[in-house]
């Protein structure tokens, strides 16, 4: 049986997703029995030229947001060659933290895409808005997270790269996956397109903290409170987005005493994560008095930057930042 061809690439982001993919390789099992690395600049030093010699890529794991003309070009080029496009990590899936740039609506100071005296090399131009991969090309599957947990990455690799052939099925990989995806993995067929390798409920479902009563009396910024270690953070007044964020991480942040910031993106049925958070939290305000409610509301700071920490580019219903400009389409490389 012919080996499949794998590509891994990070656009604008950090190396965490790459390292996570590498960790899967380190810790679980090398993927090489089923696939050849066709393109992985970070690890194998692949160059763009190398891609010209590859006619088809079976799976492309694309990490990072689309920020520059080069990113866009990379996305288009990889998509063209790729059968299954997997967005890896929050940046690729929803724009991630780089997406907050849209909120600031500024262009980076270094965006002088011109050449100096004809000798200095040019830079790929930055686009006016940071985009998620899905806003540029068709994406087949998503592994969210910042970075994605290894078990979810591994389940994605199993499902997409070696369906039906993988001998080392690791049970935990499918632990909180939606039923239909885990069924696909075990039966070796491709999951339905558009699937997300993550849970389908919200983080609370797997968070270990005890939920008693949702009644919001006063908001605390995370620095101002040493929360009770066993109890729901939100109930203690710390804005935690676990209630509206897709699960799959297992409540990693809340277990570490840090409130969820939504790196898995919105929960499945949610339209807009910020609106849902606002609705859920304020509905439980312990007051019926307009002035009191207003005062409680004013205790929250930087709503947009917090509620869309990882999702500003793709999941905020109201896109912020400058409108697309004409230069975005393409630029010199």
């Amino acid at each position, binding site marked *: 049986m012919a080996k499949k061809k794998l590509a891994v690439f990070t656009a604008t982001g950090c190396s965490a997703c790459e390292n996570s993919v590498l960790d899967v390789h380190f810790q679980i099992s090398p993927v090489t029995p089923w696939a050849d690395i066709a393109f992985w600049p970070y690890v194998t030093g692949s160059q763009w030229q190398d891609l010209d010699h590859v006619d088809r890529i079976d799976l492309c794991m694309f990490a990072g947001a689309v920020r520059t003309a080069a990113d866009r070009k990379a996305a288009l080029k990889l998509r063209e060659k790729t059968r299954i496009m997997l967005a890896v990590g929050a940046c690729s899936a929803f724009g991630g933290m780089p997406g907050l740039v849209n909120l600031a609506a500024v262009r980076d100071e270094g965006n002088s895409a011109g050449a100096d005296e004809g000798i200095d090399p040019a830079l790929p131009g930055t686009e006016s808005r940071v985009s998620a991969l899905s806003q540029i090309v068709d994406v087949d599957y998503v592994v969210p997270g910042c970075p994605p947990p290894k078990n979810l990455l591994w389940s994605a690799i199993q499902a997409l790269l070696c369906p039906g052939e993988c001998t080392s099925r690791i049970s935990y990989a499918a632990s909180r996956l939606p039923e239909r995806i885990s069924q696909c993995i075990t039966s070796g067929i491709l999951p339905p397109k558009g699937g997300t390798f993550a849970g*389908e*409920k*919200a*983080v*609370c*479902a797997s968070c270990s903290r005890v*939920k*008693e*009563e*949702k*009644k919001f009396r006063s908001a605390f910024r995370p620095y101002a409170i040493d929360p009770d270690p066993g109890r*729901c953070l939100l109930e203690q007044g710390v804005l935690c987005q*676990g*209630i*509206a964020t897709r*699960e799959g991480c297992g409540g990693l942040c809340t277990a570490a005493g840090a409130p969820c910031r939504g790196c898995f993106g919105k*929960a*499945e*049925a*949610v*339209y807009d994560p910020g609106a*849902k*958070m606002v*609705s*859920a939290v304020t*509905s*439980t305000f312990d007051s019926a008095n307009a002035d009191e409610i207003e005062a409680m509301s004013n205790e929250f700071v930087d709503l947009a930057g917090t509620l869309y920490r990882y999702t500003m580019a793709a999941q905020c219903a109201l896109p912020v930042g400058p409108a697309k400009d004409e230069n975005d389409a393409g630029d010199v490389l």
Partner: protein
Amino acid sequence: MKKVGVYICHCGTNIGGKVDCARVAEELGAEMEHVAVSRHYKYMCSEPGQKMIRDDIAELGLDYVVEASCSPKMHEPTFRNAVSQAGMNQYNFEMVNIREHCSWVLEDEEAATHKAKDLVRGAISRVVHHQPLKGSTTSVNPKVLVLGAGIAGITAAIKIANAGYQVYLVEREEIIGGKMAQFDKTFPTLDCSGCILTPKTSEVGRHPNIEILTKSEIMEVTGFVGNFNVRVLQKPRYVSLETCTGCGDCEEVCPIDVSSPFELGMTTRHPISRPFPQAIPNKYSIMRAGMPPCQAACPAGVNVQGYMTLAGVGRFDQALTLIRERMPFASVCGRICVRPCEDACKRGQIDAPSAICYTKRFLGDRDRELGLEQNPPLKERREEKVAVIGSGPSGLSAAYFLTLEGYQVTIFEKLPVMGGMLAVGIPDYRLPRDVLDHEIRNVLNMGVQVKTGVTFGKDITFDSLDQDGFKAVYLATGLHVNRRLNVEGEDLDGVGGGVEMLRNYTLGEEVKIGKTAVVIGGGNVALDVARSAIRLGAETVVLACLESREEMPAWEREIEEGLEEGLILHNSWGPTRFLGENGKISGVEFKRCTSVFDESGRFNPAYDESECMELKCDTVLVAIGQSSDGDIIGGLGLELAPGGRIAADPDTLATSRPGVFCGGDGMLGPATFVQAVSHGRQAALSIHHYIEHGGLRPVEMKERPVDKDLKESERVRAKPVERGRMPMLAPEERKHSFDAIELGFTEEMAKAEGQRCLSCGICCQCGECVRKCGPQAIDLSEKEKIRDLDVGAIVVATGVDIFDAKQYPEYGFGKYPDVITNLQFERLCNASGPTSGRVVRPSNGEVPQSVVFIQCVGSRDPAKGKEYCSKVCCMVSAKQLSIFKHHNPDGQAYVFYIDNRTGGKGYEEFLRRAIEEENAQYIRGRVAKVFEEGGRLVVRGENSLAGGPVEVEADLVVLATGLTAQQDYMNVSRALNLATDKNGFFIELHPKLGPVETSLSGIYLAGAAQGPKDIPESVAQGGAAAGEVLTLFSIGQVEIEPTTAQLNERLCTGCKTCEGLCAYDAISFSEQTKLAVINAALCQGCGTCAAACPAAAIAVAHYTPDQIFAQIEGILA
């Protein structure tokens, strides 16, 4: 492929006149993906229209139907029914409102068409997301609440009760019958109104299935059709419906007369009375507006209106007894009280407040002079002992009330004399010793033990009291230590404390006052000290204080009197140091005080150091306040409050030690005499409760106070009597002795003062009737009750009010006694009315010869009155002029009318008779003015038929006032969530086809609450409402809409956000599945949970996010 049928209704020209229905249908049919057929028709709600839909569903196999016409509030059921007849689930139907929201409110045809298209597009886009739903049913609670017991309510109540169902008949007034009970005769048959109503009211009164709740109003309604919960506020009648025999003895002794609302002010009644002899319930009741402001202001809660009223009628003994129910020391109080009652007295808003305090003093002094000792009766003697520490006003008061309750009380007093500050802190010229002693003796005579010279904490302790068998202790130790200034030289010889000086003088110890004395302080005590210093021989007495003259806390009267006696005031100065020579005081240095209080109103004086003053003197008396003896208080082991006071619960006065209570100055800080007395009573009640029940509770529920602002009716009640002036000693005389300054009221003065009372609370609760009542049916302490009634349906029959004719000042209503309203005319004719049925001129009792009726007062007049026609007035005037003619066949009636509206069976004939047989002159035209000329009224108007001005002389003018909504209609509207029109009349479901239903199912309308009606109509509608209720009851169950919240368990995370939000407790959390659980039977479908669910795991059926999103998309596409 889903198939949608779209139908646009023209509604005649209602929609079609503005919206291009054809275009909407055609364009959307072409544009929208799922539209299988798109039609428009003149009347979609008509049978052919509905058939069109049914046929299309059958022939084209439509999956969904969108219908655009009027408000879904109107025809949604019609069309839902139509589609389900054709086999489609009724929830696969969506209705668009392009009439009320579109054609009727837009001017521009293009805009209206555009908007209609948007709305229909939204509905098409939405409807394909609809799901077929099926409802469930719940049973109906077969009880009904009828709100309002006028003829409409009575009719409905009887009919429903006769069918065997329980009826609660809730009536705001004390009797049932409504407006009809006030009428004399009814048109057009001239039946006696009473004769046809009384059988009905008595049937209601004795009907086993009807419970009448008089003086009751609804507060709130929860639940839904079939299962309402109604909360009713029942105000006290004070007279038991069971035991009252209706004998009327009570009425005779009642000292108060107020204008009778039932007789529309044409006569008076006693607060305890019944409106007319055949009233149902045929029992007495008491009119009480609430707690009068004087009583509400009094810390001790003395029934001021009660004793003032009794004093006014010369029943002085009873008056004093009434005082002593709350205030054992009438004479003392009458001298030194700060009189919050007089500040609150509403008579003050007319001329000057009643001289309440002086009257009380008179009553107390009279008792002493006559040696009557009028006390409330003692209860049965009890064995439990209670200790009271301190014999000041608070301690004495506690002892008094505890003794009344039957307890064995011992007072322990540190000083050799009794009375606390009353004895040693208030100079004799204000409160003579013998007055105080008499009132203390009165308390002691009741059996109170006293031990003087006993210091608490030294001679006795809590433990020793426990051992001696005292069950409870009341600490009323007061504040006897002078506060110090803490400035340089305060220890010099000649500097002393003011309170100390007063005490030493009283106790007969040596008091040294030099020639020039400086008193420091601006309060009443400082004034007492300064004026005492004058009496003790100081030549110059200077009073210096931080406050400006206006800010001084001392009484203005005290200051004035001091100035009269030669006192010198230095305001806005603060002492910096005392100057001395050879260890003796020689002067005081002051600096300018610029402000006493800071911006937040706290005591925080600011000074101007550059402005200084020095006063030479040989005596300084510091009177800047007192504090408690820290040594004693600190050693008690009780919890303390800030400022070294003992912490006690403000309601129960309980301290941190069980069985120990504390009040008065020792708990409050410096307070007034009356507060101290009030605490004594409060403590006595608490202690009684503690001993009797072993627990604590807040002492009393207070009655609702009346409005502080003067009402017109009260102004009218004010008798023209001036406030009495207190006779006083001249300043020269009083300066040199401690003789009392005020000489007291005489009996006549007290009586006159009592008559000045406005009776703000109406009934004064003096208790005269209670004493008179044989069967003991009267209970003045009755309180408001709240009844929770569970019913399945509600009939609203709250009736109408009468238009206020004062809105037309030109007609002189309220100015000329002979200008009356037509309802007043009814009372004049009525045999049980103020004139026993004689139609006479209210001004002089003569029979009128010429009577002018003015029509449309307040009706059909958008400028000043109401736009609508009040419907009954034409016939009322025709009837009244006929009655007038029967009374006085020689008399002449004139009617100024606009149009005569006599639609009704026999109405026009009746009017013709009035014109032809009674010879009434009907003049078409408005009246411009009614004025008096030579003792007769002249009505000037125009005759619009003859085209000229006309003047008619009249002995009596009757205004045909229109009907308006009840003034408090908003309360009912709010409680029931019932819509009203702009005039305050309740809106029926449909003006033609749903005249008694409302938009809220299970709530029905009857009578004029819906709009002006005459008696036959009201009765008919009462019957119709009863029919609706009975229909509901006979079906026995109501369909619950399936539009409830649905949980998607796959998505629910069990975060508990929704759990606390549900107002119906329909959501709970399952510990087993760790998910939310929705109880569909309790869910009302409000969707709050769905909006809040952070995982979007909850959606309300038929209002799901995808449906709403689709609608938004469709509208904005």
